[in-house]
């Protein structure tokens, strides 16, 4: 579609391959690709899929860093491949599925466990009495909005799970994105469900598993700062826990 631009550069891609129908364990395969200077890692993968090897499987859709489906480990670091410039890499680029997740096939990981954790923090507005639409929107000041806005920016790309050393070793840990999401609702002035979520936060997948490695925040492509969310959530969970001795809750 477009004319050639700038200088093409030859690169070697070392890509994880795994087909449960055939392979016992994942292996790697190398592809030589002449890359445009403005290409992202995802462009190269799509080129491989279209022109070299149609059996390569990977997830992607929006190619604009917002759908969250194209996360992979690139040279060992969790990255959104549609946003990762090849220009920042050398000759050899290693592409693996996101670390810390079981591998379904090639670069595709199993994310159902994540989805369960995601749901377990009750990521919806909990109110004692629901309003009818006819009553009009709630009021929320820009300041109240800013208390949770950052934590609502998560695209569920799961890079933070691939980076977190605790997720790697503790299967039950709720993990950064799920906790950030629960915390997002706890901080929302329209929500009344903090007590319920704090119970989840103190449960099996407890927020206290987090040892503040801050790696989640380092890799997050959307500046959600899940590490901040988790550690705020810890404090809230403690305060809420202490309060539960003072005020007996019904139910």
């Amino acid at each position, binding site marked *: 579609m477009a004319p050639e631009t700038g200088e093409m550069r030859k690169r070697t891609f070392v890509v994880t391959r795994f087909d449960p129908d055939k392979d016992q364990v994942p292996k790697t395969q190398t592809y030589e690709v002449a890359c445009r200077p403005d290409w992202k890692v995802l462009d190269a993968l799509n080129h491989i899929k279209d022109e070299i090897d149609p059996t390569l499987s990977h997830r992607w859709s929006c190619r604009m860093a917002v759908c969250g489906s194209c996360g992979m480990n690139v040279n060992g670091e969790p990255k959104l491949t549609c946003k990762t410039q090849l220009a920042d890499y050398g000759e050899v680029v290693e592409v693996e599925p996101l670390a810390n997740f079981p591998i379904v096939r090639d670069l595709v990981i199993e994310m159902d466990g994540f989805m369960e954790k995601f749901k377990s923090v009750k990521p919806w507005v909990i109110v004692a009495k629901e309003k009818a639409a006819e009553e009009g929107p709630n009021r929320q000041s820009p300041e109240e909005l800013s208390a949770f806005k950052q934590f609502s920016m998560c695209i569920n790309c799961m890079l933070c799970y691939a980076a977190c050393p605790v997720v790697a*070793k*503790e299967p039950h840990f709720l993990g950064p994105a799920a906790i950030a999401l629960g915390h997002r609702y706890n901080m929302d002035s329209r929500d009344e469900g903090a007590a319920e979520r704090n119970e989840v936060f103190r449960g099996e997948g407890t927020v206290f598993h987090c040892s503040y490695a801050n790696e989640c925040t380092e890799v997050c492509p959307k500046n959600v700062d899940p590490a901040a969310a988790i550690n705020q959530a810890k404090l809230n969970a*403690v305060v809420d*826990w202490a309060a539960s001795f003072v005020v007996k809750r019904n139910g």
Partner: protein
Amino acid sequence: MKTLLLRLEPVIWLLFGAGILLGTLLLPGYLLAVTLGAPLGLLPDGAMSYERAYTLASHPIGRVLLLALIALPLWKGAHHVRALLADWLGHGPDPVIGSLLYAIAAAGSLAGIYAVLTL
């Protein structure tokens, strides 16, 4: 034991948090003066004589600070060592190891309280 630990997690985390924050604030002064300055002879004569040390430590503020210097690093240490071992041993924070470490911290803190009160 696992559930018990889970229940206690908020308290442990609070103690740990206090340890990492307050412990870290207090420790350099103590380390520089008592454990490095005095033995290396960098302090004025008599600064760390028994009488002076005892006077300082037995003052109510002294007792509180001394206890803080015992208990806080213990909790910070126990919690972090548990996390470190989790990485080393290759599975999540282990309840047995955790309990052991927290038991050390708890025992140390209790002993500290006793020692500080009976100065």
